[in-house]
C-alpha cells in the first residue's frame, strides 16, 4: 500500500515565493491533477516531491516515512518530463533500461520488451529519440519512468507538447497504464479539460497555494473560491451587492440566489459568476430581457454574447435551438443554484 503525503510545503526562489504551504495526499492508484495557471507553483511542487529541489519547509512522506533526506535516485519515483528529457545519445531500449540496468534479479531485456509492448512500441527498440514522433517519444518517456517499478508516478505536463487529437488518445492510454500499475500519481497540467477528464481528484492551484481539492465534478460544480470558479469553465463575471440572504443586486437588478451559497452578510460587495452553459433560454426564475450582440456557430453549439440589464452575458446553447442573429431580442433566465457568489477581492483578476 503506497500513499503519498505532502505536508505544508514551502519553497522560495530568491524573492519569489513559489509555494506558500501546500498539503495534500494521494492514495494508491489515485491520480491527482494539480491544475493552475503558469507560475502557480504546480511544477515546483512536483520537483520537490521528486527531490530535484529541496523545500524550505514542510515534509513529503511515502507510507508515513519522510523521504526528504533521500536524493532523487533513492526516492523510487517515476518522472515524466514536459519535453520528455529522453537521453539523445541512447536508443529507445537503452533509455528504458537506464533505471534497471544495475538492478539485480531483473531480466532487463524481458522487462524492456514488456514495457515496449505496453506502450505499443515493439518495433522501435533500436531507434534514437530524434527518430521518433512526438507521440512515440511521450510513450518512451512513460515506459522509461515505469521500468524501475517506481513507488509513485509524477507527470509534468506530459501531453502539452502534442497536438489535440493525439493528446486525447494518449490521455486514455496514460490512464489505462496508470490504473494497471495502481500507483499514486501526481499529474501537473494547466489544461482544465485534460485535468477534468483524467483525474480522480483535482487540486486547483493559485499563487503557491491549493485553492480547492476534490473530485472533478465537485470542484467544477461547487467551486469554493472565487479563483476556482473563475478559472474553471467559461462564463461571465459581475460585481454586485448582497441585499438579503437570498438575493444579490447586480447593476440595480435583483437576482435570486440559492441559500446554501448565500452565507455572506448583507451589504457586502460580491463577485457574481455565471458559467456559459448555466444560462437558460426562455423565461423562468431570474428572467432577463436580452439583446444579442454576437452569435458564433460552434458546430455542436452556439455561443451568444448578449447585452442584459446586469451586463454582458456569455451563453452557450446546444445546436438546434434555431439560428440567433445579432440584434435579436430574447429572454434568458439564470437558475439560482447555478449562480456563484463570492466576496469581491481587491482586484478583478
Amino acid at each position: 500500500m503506497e500513499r503519498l503525503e505532502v505536508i505544508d510545503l514551502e519553497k522560495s526562489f530568491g524573492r519569489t515565493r513559489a509555494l506558500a504551504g501546500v498539503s495534500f495526499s494521494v492514495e494508491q492508484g489515485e491520480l491527482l491533477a494539480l491544475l493552475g495557471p503558469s507560475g502557480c507553483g504546480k511544477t515546483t511542487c512536483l520537483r520537490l516531491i521528486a527531490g530535484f529541489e529541496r523545500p524550505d519547509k514542510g515534509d513529503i512522506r511515502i507510507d508515513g516515512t519522510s523521504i526528504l533526506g533521500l536524493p532523487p535516485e533513492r526516492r523510487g519515483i517515476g518522472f515524466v518530463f514536459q519535453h520528455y528529457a529522453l537521453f539523445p545519445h541512447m536508443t529507445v531500449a537503452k533509455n528504458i533500461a537506464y533505471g534497471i540496468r544495475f538492478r539485480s534479479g531483473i531480466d532487463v531485456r524481458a522487462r524492456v520488451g514488456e514495457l515496449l509492448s505496453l506502450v505499443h512500441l515493439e518495433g522501435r527498440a533500436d531507434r534514437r529519440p530524434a527518430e521518433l514522433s512526438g507521440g512515440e517519444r511521450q510513450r518512451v518517456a512513460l515506459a522509461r519512468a515505469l521500468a524501475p517499478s517506481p513507488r509513485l508516478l509524477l507527470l509534468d505536463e506530459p501531453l502539452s507538447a502534442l497536438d489535440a487529437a493525439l493528446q486525447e488518445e494518449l490521455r486514455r492510454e496514460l490512464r489505462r497504464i496508470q490504473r494497471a500499475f495502481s500507483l499514486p500519481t501526481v499529474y501537473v497540467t494547466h489544461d482544465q479539460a485534460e485535468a477534468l477528464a483524467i483525474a480522480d481528484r483535482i487540486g486547483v492551484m493559485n499563487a503557491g497555494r491549493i485553492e480547492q481539492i476534490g473530485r472533478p465534478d465537485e470542484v467544477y460544480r461547487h467551486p469554493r473560491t472565487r479563483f476556482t470558479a473563475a478559472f474553471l469553465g467559461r462564463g461571465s463575471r459581475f460585481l454586485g451587492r448582497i441585499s438579503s440572504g437570498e438575493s444579490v443586486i447586480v447593476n440595480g437588478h435583483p437576482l435570486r440566489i440559492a441559500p446554501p451559497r448565500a452565507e455572506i452578510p448583507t451589504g457586502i460587495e460580491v463577485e457574481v459568476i455565471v458559467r456559459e452553459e448555466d444560462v437558460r433560454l426562455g423565461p423562468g426564475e431570474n428572467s432577463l430581457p436580452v439583446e444579442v450582440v454576437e452569435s458564433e456557430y460552434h458546430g455542436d453549439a452556439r455561443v451568444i454574447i448578449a447585452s442584459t440589464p446586469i451586463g454582458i452575458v456569455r451563453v452557450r446553447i446546444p445546436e438546434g435551438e434555431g439560428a440567433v442573429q445579432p440584434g435579436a431580442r430574447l429572454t434568458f433566465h439564470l437558475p439560482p443554484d447555478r449562480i456563484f457568489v463570492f466576496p469581491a477581492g481587491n482586484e478583478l483578476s
Partner: protein
Amino acid sequence: MARRVGAGDDATVIGRAVLYLIPIAFLGIGFYYPLGVVLRDGLAPGPLRAVLTDPCFLHLIAFTLKQAAISTALSLALGLPGAYLLARYEFPGRRAIRALTAVPFVLPAITVGLGFILFFGGNGVLNRFLMWAFHLPSPPLHLLYSLTGIVLAHAFYNAPIVMRTVGAAWEGIDPSFAEAAAALGAGRWRRALGITLPLLSPAIMSSAALVFVFTFLSFPIVLVLGGARYATIEVGIYTLVRTLLDFPRGAALIVVETAISLGFSYLYLRAEGQFAVPVQGERKAPRIPFFRRGRWGEKSLLAGYAVAIGVLFLGPIGAVIADSFRGEAGPTLSHYRALVSLGYNPFLGTSPLHTILTSLEIAGIATAIAVPLGAFVVRIATGRFPSRRIAETVLMAPLAVSSVAVGFAILRGFSRPPFNGVGPVLTIALAHAILIYPLAGRVLRPVVEGLDPNLIAAARGLGAGPIRAFFEVELPLISRGVMTAIVFSFALSMGEMSATIILMRPGTATIPVAVYSLLSARQFGPASAMASLLIGVTAVAFLAFERVGEGLGEG
C-alpha cells in the same frame, strides 16, 4: 529553473568542498599571488611616477592607443562588407568561409608576423611580383617596420572577428522590421541607415571593443613588424624586463596598461547596456543567391572586395608555407629535415627537435590544467549560488591581464621562495594554463548550457547517483565539447609566445619563440618550416572546432 539536482546531498558536501578548493588554491598561487607581487612593485610611487612623467613612456602609451584605434577602424572597414556578404548572400563555399573566420582565434600571431614579412616585405612576394610585372628596378612598396605594417597585420588578424560577430547578428535580424519600414514608405537607404544600422550597432560596438582590446595588448606582431622605431606598451614591458632588467618600471607599465584596458572595458560594458535592443525575431531573411541576375553594381564591388581580402588573408599564410619548401636550388624538404635534428642550433640555444618536444610537453601540461579549470568556471557560471557574479569575475580576471603581464607576474612570483624551485617548463606551462583556461571555459560553456538539466534530473529520478549521472549522461553529451576544448587549449599553448618569451631560460625555447629567433636572424627557411608546423596544429584545432559545430547543428 533548476540547474543542479539534489544540490544539498550530505554525502556530496565534502566532495564539493574539494572540487571547489583545488581550483581556488591553484588560481591563488598561479595568478593572484604573482599578480599581487607585480602590483606591489608597480604601484610604488617611484616607478609609477617615472613611467607617467617620462616623455618616452608617454609616447609609448600614446602610440599604443593610436595604433589600436586605427587598427580597429581598419578591421571594421575590412570586416563589415564581409559580414554583409556572409549574412545576405548565398554562394558556394559560404559556410566554409564563415567557418574560416574562426581561424584568427587559433592562428599564432608570430606566424602572421612572419607571413607579412614574406608577403609584404621589401623582398616579399608582392614586391617581387610588382617588380616583375612593371619592370621596376627596386621594390615599390615599403609597408613593414611602420605603422602601416602593424595596422595592416592587425586588420588581417581582427577583420574576421568583425565579420563573424556582425555577420551573425545581421543574419539574426528579423526581416519584419525592414518590411514594416518599407511598408511605411522607407526606401533602401533609409531602411539601411534607419533600421538595419541601429539594430546592428550593438554587434558592431562589441566587435570593435574586442578588436580594440586585442590590438591594444598586441605583442608578437608589433615586436616583429614594428622594427626599432615602433613599439607598444607590451613591447615596452618586454624590453624593460628582458633587456634592461628594470623590473620596477616594467611592473609600473603593467599597472598603467591594465588600468587603461580595464577602463576601456568598463566604458564598453556601460555603453553596451544602453545600446542593446532585442532584435532577434522569429523569422530570418532568406539569402540572395549571388550568381543570379540583378544588383550588378553591388555584386561587382563585393567581388572585388572578396578578391582583395582573399589576397590579404591567403597571401601571408601561403607565403610561409611556400617559403618552408624553398631552397637555394629549387624546392626542398631540407628545412623540415632540419626540424627533427638533434644538432645544436645557436639561434635557438638548443636543438630544433628539443624545441618541438618542449612545446609539446608544455602544451600537454597546460591543457591538462586549463580544461578542468575551464570546466570549473563553467560550473560556477551556470550554477546557482548567491555570490555567483563575484565568483565569475574573480575566475575570469586573467582575461583582463595581458599575456606579457601574466608571464612577468609569474616570473616575479616564482623567483622567490617557496616557489623558486619550480622549473622553467612548469612555470611556462602554468602561465599558459592561466591564459588559456578562461577561453577553454568559453568553448565548454555553450555545450554545457545546451544540455537540458532535465536529462540529469531524469537520470537521478531513475536511480542513478550523481556520479553515474555525470559519467553516463552528462559526459557523453558534452564529450565533443570537451574534446574541442582539449584540442583548442593545446593549439593555443603551442602558439603562445608572449608569456613564454618572458619566462623562457636558455634551452627552453618553444616553437613560436624559435620562429621569432630564426626570423630575427633572417633564417627565413627554417623559420617558415617551424611556423608551418604551427599552421598545421592550427588547422587540426580548427577542424576539431568545425566538427563540433556540425555536431551541434544536428542535435
